[in-house]
């Protein structure tokens, strides 16, 4: 029954998209200056239907309706309700439905919130967005339909991969999708702007909040994914340069560049075509990422059961998008004649964009290189952290200096009358850095430079904050985001420099000591839960110097459906450090492999990213207030 309902809703959605495109086209041709009321109504109906469609699938998961292949393959009656629901988007077909929801809702919201912009611009945006929706709807209907039925109906489902049964992972996909699928709206708007020659600064106004929204959610999505990797994957890292993580980072770089260059378009009516290029590549990179993940070309923790036919469909869709927008862009492109002085805020924004493009290209090359070598030379290689760290880290140092100086520059033509001020900041940063080294014995030149440059940015943003409070001329959003980014790099640097990692093979009762620590495997406990059994280690960690004792309980879990072994890290977090402990069994021996890590300031890395996003959202509220 739910299968039929779902399919009917999907087909009606196709019809509604076609209707919207038809009426929008009629409305463009008509001489009336306002948009037909029925277009709003159909858009609203379309959004309602797509939500209905999604709730139908959720309902099928909640009641464990195994007459749907999708539910049978990804759920199980013994699964907790929360994971039954999150299982809806924890698989390829269900997550595509989430794609459609975001495409549709953004389309509707863009239509109703931009009523002070030209009619044709809004309608073309609506048409392009609905073409995107249709593309994905056909993909769902003909290739990845979550409502396909199964007969005879199985009594039990196959279950959801246990490592995906995690609260962080339940919200990770929706957040990330709001980010990169959300970028579709300014892809559509950019094309509409090219078609209707709507190139003034008011175009920047129409998309800037959408860029901020998608950027904010993209950042949050990446953050939650990192937190999940840190807690769940069990080796204590939070960023792996996994190709799929990179796929989420690529649009993020483009979005970050875009939200800065939009400032120039908005204030100076410059860089219009560059803004358009960034709008187009953000969503194109999002679809490319989806292609890489869903086609199975890249192997990673995110790869769904791969199927080449999916790849061909997305690739065809991607090609149409790329060549369509490229054709339009190249035809409409004309040189801008206005001058940008090399010493001006505009230049600093451009510098930000060059850096972003540099990071983007580095990560893109690193991600695609293995695919290219495999095809061209038949060599299977992988590009790992050493590549990214070597290429990106030194550049971050320079970037942070510019990030501190840039906001101080004036529009049009700048004069540096504050060199003394920057010298003082640099001096302060050096003092703090050397005290860190003196007390904690830091290491390489590069790590010193990273700390100095991030401190420089933090101090500069901090004084900005104080200054703007005194003059009550606030740019709180920018200051918070910049200071958070400085802190993020600083904490990552300190965390990297002062982490301790030790590995032991231990028997129950054994004690090992190292540095100031003593670690004892006291005993093991076996517990049975609803859908898994757990061997829980009871380990005591003693810091001899601080006379501090902690008990940590890492687990080895044996899940029933599907039968899988997972290792759960035990993590004790406080404001200064994390203790991170994992335990794994060694076959046919009484030894357990214990990995102990001390990771300083871990929680501050998460807090910095959260603050970075907070800055972004603050800007949205401020913009809304002005409007």
């Amino acid at each position, binding site marked *: 029954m739910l299968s039929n309902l779902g399919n009917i809703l999907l087909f009606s959605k196709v019809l509604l998209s076609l209707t919207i495109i038809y009426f929008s086209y009629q409305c463009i041709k008509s001489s009336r200056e306002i948009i037909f009321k029925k277009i709003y109504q159909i858009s609203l109906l379309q959004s309602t239907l797509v939500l209905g469609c999604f709730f139908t699938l959720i309902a099928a998961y909640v009641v464990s309706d195994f007459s749907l292949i999708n539910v049978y393959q990804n759920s199980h009656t013994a699964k907790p309700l929360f994971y039954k629901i999150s299982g809806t988007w924890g698989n390829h077909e269900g997550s595509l439905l989430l794609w459609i929801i975001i495409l549709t809702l953004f389309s509707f919201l863009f239509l109703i919130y931009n009523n002070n912009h030209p009619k044709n611009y809004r309608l073309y945006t609506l048409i392009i967005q609905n073409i995107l929706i249709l593309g994905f709807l056909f993909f769902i209907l003909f290739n990845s339909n979550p409502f396909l039925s199964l007969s005879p109906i199985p009594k039990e489902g196959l279950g959801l991969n246990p490592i995906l049964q995690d609260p962080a992972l339940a919200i990770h996909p929706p957040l990330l999708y709001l980010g990169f699928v959300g970028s579709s709206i300014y892809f559509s708007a950019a094309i509409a702007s090219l078609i209707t020659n709507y190139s003034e600064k008011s175009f920047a106004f129409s998309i800037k909040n959408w860029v901020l929204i998608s950027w904010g959610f993209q950042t949050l999505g990446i953050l939650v994914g990192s937190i999940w990797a840190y807690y769940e994957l069990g080796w204590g890292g939070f960023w792996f340069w996994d190709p799929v993580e990179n796929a989420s980072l690529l649009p993020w770089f483009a979005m970050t560049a875009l939200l800065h260059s939009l400032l120039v378009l908005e204030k100076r009516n410059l860089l219009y075509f560059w803004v358009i290029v960034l709008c187009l590549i953000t969503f194109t990179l999002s679809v490319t990422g989806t292609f890489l993940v869903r086609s*199975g070309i890249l192997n990673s923790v995110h790869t769904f059961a791969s199927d080449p036919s999916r790849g*061909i469909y997305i*690739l065809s869709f991607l090609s149409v998008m790329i*060549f369509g927008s*490229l054709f339009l862009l190249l035809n409409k492109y004309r040189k801008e004649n206005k001058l940008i002085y090399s010493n001006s805020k505009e230049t600093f924004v451009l510098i930000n964009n060059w850096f972003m493009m540099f990071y983007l290209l580095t990560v893109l090359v690193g991600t695609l290189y293995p695919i290219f070598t*495999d*095809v061209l030379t038949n060599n299977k290689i992988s590009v790992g952290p050493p590549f990214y760290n070597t290429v990106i880290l030194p550049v971050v140092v320079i970037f942070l200096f510019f990030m501190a100086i840039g906001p101080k520059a004036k529009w049009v033509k700048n004069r540096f009358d504050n060199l003394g001020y920057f010298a003082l900041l640099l001096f302060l940063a050096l003092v703090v850095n050397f005290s860190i080294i003196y007390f904690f014995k830091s290491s390489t030149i590069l790590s010193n430079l990273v700390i100095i440059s991030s401190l420089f940015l933090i101090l500069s943003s901090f004084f900005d904050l104080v200054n703007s409070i005194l003059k009550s001329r606030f740019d709180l959003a920018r200051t918070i985001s910049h200071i958070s980014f400085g802190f993020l790099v600083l904490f990552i640097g300190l965390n990297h420099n002062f982490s301790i990692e030790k590995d032991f093979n231990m028997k129950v009762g054994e004690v090992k000591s190292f540095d100031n620590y003593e670690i004892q495997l006291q005993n093991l406990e076996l517990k049975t839960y609803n859908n898994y059994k757990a061997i829980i280690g009871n380990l005591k960690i003693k810091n001899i110097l601080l006379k501090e004792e902690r008990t940590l309980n890492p687990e080895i879990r044996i899940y029933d459906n599907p039968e899988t072994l997972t290792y759960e890290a035990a993590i004790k977090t406080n404001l200064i450090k994390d203790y991170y402990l994992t335990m794994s069994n060694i076959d*046919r*021996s009484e*030894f357990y492999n214990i990995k102990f890590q001390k990771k300083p300031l871990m929680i501050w890395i998460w807090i910095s990213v959260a603050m970075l996003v907070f800055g972004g959202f603050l800007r949205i509220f401020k913009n809304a207030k002005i409007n």
Partner: protein
Amino acid sequence: MQKLIKSIITIIFIFIIMIFYISLGKDNSYDTVNLVGKKLDSIEIQSFNNEKFVNTKSFKDNSFTLINFWASWCGPCRAEHPILMNLKESKSLILVGVNFKDKKKNAKNFLEDLGNPYGILLKDESGKKSINFGIYGIPESILLNKELVIIEKFVGPLVEEDYEKILEEIGEK
């Protein structure tokens, strides 16, 4: 000039899409089990005790060779060690140990504590050489015949059944 730039941009995109298309048809699941039945490449790898390099071609002198990848830090390697010690007794089999991403001192202690089953001991400090053998984790073992063809691969620690299997393959059962 502008036309040229436009053409270059378009060609780059066509090239990328083509590569994507071709890679769709490629089997990219990395599974070293496929290596069984293939001849081992000629690989130079450093000796454990001195700076000399040993070429895998030299394994031709043995009737059968079992290359075992291990490290002192690896728990499962400890677990499979008694089996390797038993295999040492076999007449037609030479054991080659490749010490993987390890500290020399720890590796030496490991062999002193548990015994040294290896006729030839090599090291791969960076772990890069082992990739050429199709290794992606340790312990792993590869059984070669005289022609250097891989006749069996064992991913993970060797267990009793593997021991029986190896004896069967080398005709000592």
